[in-house]
């Protein structure tokens, strides 16, 4: 759109006056000439309308009482009744709080460690060894949480689990599937194990763009490795860090379904139940569609607000730095 307007301005600068009618005709011709590019987008657009935008219309169910016969459109309006019901449930607030706490803990633990791991990998000189390390650390990202849950059950098995037995030999009797706090620790650490390697990729890309001349100059000035890290590496990584942080903060409320559903049980609901698992239980499990839709809408909106908020904050910080 912008480019089209730009073109038009250029032409009027050249002194060619374009009548409104011919401008519209030109736009029409431009669209017709580019019809190929519109046509090839049509399949994706139609499917998005059906599978992404239609459910967005479906959120009106959050303000209705669902009737199977009448469908979403025909179901009677009930105003904010579903939300009132939702907000009265202690289980919902529990899940809401847990979602936030678990995501925040994951962020606090994995954010710095991912950067450290990236810097460490970047420091390897041998290309073969570097590839080997990268191959190993990226691997867990590509297996599903179903498989990872299987691995975790085997590692913490009370008869044969190597981690369980190791901690037991140190005098620590773990109960990761029965104790809420231990369960949260398990969530944070298994998420770290699975995603820390994958998270380094974006930093490795940024690190490879840092001019080595900075380090050479620092060497000449006698700066040690720690000084170089804080005065060269970290400032250079700042833009990447802020993007990653923005995205992570924007998804603080929500997610984690695959991981938690495959690992949790009713004993750890108090600390481990999150919005997505709660929503699944009431919506699909109990078949309470209206309440489930309300919970989902609340989650989506909360996330949107967080994302926009984080964007504004980071934009301000960037301006200040500049």
């Amino acid at each position, binding site marked *: 759109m912008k480019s089209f307007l730009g073109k038009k301005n250029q032409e009027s600068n050249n002194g060619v006056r374009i009548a409104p009618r011919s401008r519209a005709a030109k736009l029409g011709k431009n669209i017709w000439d580019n019809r190929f590019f519109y046509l090839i987008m049509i399949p*994706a657009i139609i499917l998005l309308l059906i599978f992404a935008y239609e*459910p967005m219309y479906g959120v009106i169910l959050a303000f209705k009482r669902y009737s199977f016969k009448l469908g979403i459109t025909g179901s009677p309006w009930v105003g904010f009744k579903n939300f009132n019901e939702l907000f009265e449930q202690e289980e919902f607030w529990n899940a809401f709080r847990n979602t936030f706490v678990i995501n925040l803990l994951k962020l606090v633990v994995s954010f710095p460690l991912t950067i450290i791991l990236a810097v460490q990998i970047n420091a390897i*000189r041998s290309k073969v060894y570097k590839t080997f390390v990268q191959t190993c650390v990226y691997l867990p990202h590509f297996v599903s949480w179903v498989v990872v849950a299987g691995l975790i059950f085997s590692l913490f098995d009370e008869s044969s689990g190597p981690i369980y037995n190791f901690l037991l030999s140190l005098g620590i009797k773990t109960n990761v599937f*029965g104790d809420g706090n231990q369960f949260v620790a398990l969530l944070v650490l298994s998420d770290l194990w699975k995603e820390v390697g994958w998270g380094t990729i974006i930093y490795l890309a940024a690190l490879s763009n840092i001019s080595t001349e900075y380090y050479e100059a620092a060497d000449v000035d006698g700066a040690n490795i720690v000084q170089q890290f804080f005065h060269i590496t970290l400032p250079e990584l700042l833009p990447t860090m802020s993007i990653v942080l923005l995205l992570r903060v924007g998804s603080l409320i929500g997610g984690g379904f695959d991981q938690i559903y495959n690992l949790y049980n009713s004993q750890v609901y108090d600390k481990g139940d999150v919005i997505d698992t709660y929503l699944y239980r009431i919506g699909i499990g109990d078949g309470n569609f209206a309440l489930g839709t309300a919970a989902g809408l609340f989650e989506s909106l909360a996330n949107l607000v967080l994302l926009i908020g984080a964007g504004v904050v980071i934009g301000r910080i960037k301006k200040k730095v500049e």
Partner: protein
Amino acid sequence: MEAMARTNVKRGKTTSLRRTRLGRKVGRAINSGLLFLVAMTMLYPFIQIFLKSFMTDTDIINQGGFFVWPNTWQIEGYKSIFEADSVYNVGHAFLISVFVTAATTIYQLTITTLAAYGLSKRFLPGKKFFYAFFIFTMYFGGGLIPYFILIRQLGLLNQIWVLIIPQFISVPNLLVMKSFFDNFPSEVIEAAKVDGCSNWRTFISIVLPLSKAVLATIALFIAVGVWNNWFTTMLFIQDPDLRPLAYVVQVIIDMSVGRNTQDGQTVQLIGKSIQYAAIIVSTVPIVLVYPFLQKYFEKGVMIGSIKG
């Protein structure tokens, strides 16, 4: 690619320039050692479960340490999950998975590529609107329940197509591919036009062959995602004959441990070697395509990360 080559040259120069102090050498050795430990942490769970899948349950329980080795190698776990009349019927599920993965990959790759090429066209009237139309779905969605109702209305419940048709795009993949096409040399396309190629011809016989790397990357990403997808099956498919492997493995693990534990006592319904065999069978295909993935994905992810 060029940028990477340049950094490599620079790095090579630095090696000779940098003073090799003893402290640096020790530091580097410590770094390498730590990274070796990290790498082993990533591999260990897979290795131990691989070995245990060939052990008898008694053998597994008797060896509770970090290092395990089968006293006698046996494949009973694998045999029982591949039996056609068993409840697991992993062989059948494997075939379903292969079909769904192949079909979805071709389907999704086609739709994503077409949309990305359309979006990458310069000076396209209304381009910003279409871009926003795609991006918006990343930030807001109707949620699980309206989606569930939609799928039911469309009559897709309990049909194999529910695993394929709704998986037509992933917007992050679209962005990676769009930014690749954005950087596609326009002279090549102009030259084709001068030679009288239609837009379609240019796209099929010039642009696509030059985009093999990015197409392969995205295809592999799609395939891995589809292979791992168990949730769609749990939501929409009841017929045991239509279950892909990812969901069957989920059921096997779910039935054996974790759920319904009482006072920390693990309830075990399915033998360990059976569970572990199922996990290995579902993981092996990923490990097999992994070298190809790794060859390409860094490039793909980097292209995506530049555009944000």
